[in-house]
């Protein structure tokens, strides 16, 4: 279990282990049988920390989702609420508790655990609702960074970017700083810190202050991470808006990956060769099928970061390889040889199943990517980041609006164009905005306003994009999708700015791109944390350093792929681990910034 966590640059299994211990300590505070009531946002992430069987060992009998109204009846001694410090949820909790009290019966103990931290406002809300006193325990479970894979950590706070840029609410940054402290407690103080952007600055400041407050009580642990790089999403809003073209990125864009799990339409994966009545078959096949995607699966580990155009050839190579392996049995003559063959069988069978699965997934993805809409949108994106005709209304965008294509797709394209054009002329911006209001409805006025506040839509300003494009070599003309030689393969020709920054930070260093950095918003941060000589990692020659790249405001799978690509380069100075507030796609990111409105059904009387 969780073996995939320990094969990264540093063993993230240790982090998971420490969270597990903490969770169990929380549970063991309540003696007797328990029912857990979950905030929906947490079931997925915590599922990656502790499986149900483990909870069962600690007398958890029932699990419910947190809903308004009454709890399902159960005869447990403890009812434990586990939730995010979210005001809207407090009301549900209060209702649950009050209804349960009304019922009478034998007394139950109520407990409440906030993840990752208590909030004063929530506690106050509970007091106002008159239930705060009922709780035996109100405590916190400090689950900040959930390990997704051997080199990926996520806080799973989808509103982080929105809170920071729209509401000036920096709570998530505080959690991020705390999370970094947790990491440093487990993996040692990180000596070098670099960062870019206003939010990055806040996090670094908080982190340094927290360290000063701990003065002298630091755990004496050998530094395992050499470098911390904090990148604020606002320095690179363009990258997530573009369509990701890696295998994992495309799966996420098209079907959505949540907590390393993807749900796919069942038809493709139905066991073949089953006869019988069709009605029964329809029921089984319409159900979506779940797949867990992480590096435990050898084949997926190899496929995930490839450009999608390289996935087909690789799959067919693998298929031939497996067929050849199975054919070996004919050449096996002696008992010894046969024995050897048989011992390999389970592994080969697993490889075969996994190959079949990914061939089907790749087919599903291909169905989408060969659609005319996908190609047309990609062409428009390429024109934009190439800097062609960005100052006029783009006919493809106009057509998308007229055909009422999903609003989020339209907004993505417009924002890309806007960034690549360094903002629009007032007339252009108003034209697009008016088109959207007239076509999709007036209620989107607020979404548009949010996008402007977030800086994704703006009036033309200094011409920074062409300079950035040139100095950071964002556009690479000749991309080798099969055997890439540059990170730009993940977007077939565009190198993610964020990852370029990470690349240059090590070689030749940020000083070389001083001017470009000044064009990006927010301060540049360069700090050194002093650590005692004996805890410093002895850097043997040729050994790779370890860099933690923390993306505030979300990161895409394609960017992770680009960082992994850098790790695997032979002469690479560093290996990378990625941490983020949320794994995003352009769609999910824009939706988190947009406003969700629907008119109440109109009452004519």
């Amino acid at each position, binding site marked *: 279990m969780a073996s995939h966590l320990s094969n990264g640059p540093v063993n993230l299994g240790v982090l998971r282990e420490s969270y597990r211990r903490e969770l169990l300590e929380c549970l063991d505070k309540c003696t007797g049988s328990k029912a857990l009531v979950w905030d929906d946002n947490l079931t997925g992430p915590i599922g990656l920390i502790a499986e149900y069987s483990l909870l069962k060992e600690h007398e958890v009998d029932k699990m419910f989702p947190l809903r308004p109204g009454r709890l399902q009846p159960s005869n447990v001694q403890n009812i434990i609420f586990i939730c995010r410090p979210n005001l809207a949820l407090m009301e549900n909790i209060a209702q649950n508790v009050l209804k349960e009290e009304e019922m009478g019966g034998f007394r139950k103990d109520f407990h409440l655990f906030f993840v990752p931290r208590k909030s004063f406002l929530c506690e106050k809300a509970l007091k106002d609702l008159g239930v705060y006193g009922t709780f035996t325990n109100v405590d916190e479970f400090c689950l900040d960074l959930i390990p997704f894979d051997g080199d990926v950590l996520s806080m799973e706070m989808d509103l982080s970017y929105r809170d920071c840029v729209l509401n000036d609410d920096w709570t998530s940054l505080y959690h991020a700083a705390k999370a970094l402290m947790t990491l440093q407690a487990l993996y040692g103080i990180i000596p070098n810190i670099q960062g870019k952007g206003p939010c990055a600055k806040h996090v670094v400041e908080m982190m340094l202050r927290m360290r000063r407050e701990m003065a002298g009580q630091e755990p004496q642990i050998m530094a395992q991470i050499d470098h911390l790089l904090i990148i604020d999403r606002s320095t690179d809003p363009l990258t997530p808006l573009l369509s990701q073209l890696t295998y994992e990125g495309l799966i996420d864009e098209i079907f959505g990956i949540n907590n390393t799990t993807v749900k796919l339409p069942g038809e493709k994966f139905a066991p073949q060769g089953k006869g019988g009545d069709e009605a029964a078959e329809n029921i089984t096949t319409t159900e979506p099928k779940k797949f867990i995607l992480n590096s435990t699966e050898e084949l997926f580990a190899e496929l995930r970061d490839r450009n999608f155009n390289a996935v087909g050839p690789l799959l067919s190579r693998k298929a031939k390889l497996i067929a050849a392996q199975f054919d070996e049995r004919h050449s096996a003559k002696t008992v010894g040889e046969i024995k050897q063959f048989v011992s390999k069988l389970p592994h080969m069978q697993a490889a075969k199943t996994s190959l079949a699965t990914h061939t089907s997934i790749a087919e599903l993805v291909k169905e989408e990517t060969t659609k005319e809409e996908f190609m047309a949108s990609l062409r428009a994106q390429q024109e934009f980041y190439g800097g062609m005709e960005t100052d006029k209304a783009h006919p493809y965008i106009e057509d998308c609006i007229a055909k009422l294509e999903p609003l989020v797709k339209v907004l993505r394209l417009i924002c890309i164009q806007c960034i690549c054009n360094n903002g629009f002329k007032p007339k252009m911006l108003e034209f697009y905005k008016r088109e959207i209001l007239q076509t999709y*409805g007036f209620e989107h006025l607020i979404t548009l306003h949010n996008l402007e506040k977030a800086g994704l839509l703006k009036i033309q300003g200094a011409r920074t994009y062409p300079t950035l494009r040139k100095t950071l070599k964002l556009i690479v003309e000749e991309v080798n999708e099969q055997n890439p030689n540059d990170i730009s393969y993940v977007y077939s020709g565009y190198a993610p700015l964020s990852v370029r920054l990470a690349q240059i930070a090590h070689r030749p260093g940020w000083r070389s791109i001083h001017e470009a950095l000044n064009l990006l918003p927010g301060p540049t941060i360069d700090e050194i944390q002093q650590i005692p000589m004996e805890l410093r990692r002895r850097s043997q020659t040729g050994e790779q350093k370890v860099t933690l790249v923390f993306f505030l405001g979300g990161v895409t799978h394609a960017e992770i792929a680009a960082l992994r690509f850098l790790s695997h380069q032979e002469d690479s100075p560093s290996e990378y681990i990625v941490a983020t507030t949320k794994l995003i796609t352009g769609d999910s990111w824009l939706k988190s910034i947009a406003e969700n409105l629907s008119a109440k059904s109109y009452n004519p009387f």
Partner: protein
Amino acid sequence: CKVIDSYEEETMEARFGCLTSAQENFTKGKYEWAAKQTEEQIKLLRYQRRLEEEFSRAYLDLSLHETMRKLIAEGNTKVVEQMRKEFKVPDRRFWWLKVIAFSESGDFIELEKF
């Protein structure tokens, strides 16, 4: 925010009230463009209400685009022409609108006319 409120009001009059004060606030805050759009939204709501009375069909809270599409599909081209002028709908989109609306209503004779 008054704009959000306007979607929560149940009666038509209250919604107009909300939008009008939103419009005033936009003007005060020097968001002329937003004020103008709010004005147009009020106009659209009035249109929709009148149309509902006239044809006794639901139009309310459709966007301008969808209102016009529905009207074309139902054969009310005259009102649409008027709305198109009043709201200054660009030609390119109007052309798409007609194509889609005619094909939806299966009006291939009109579609041929292009």
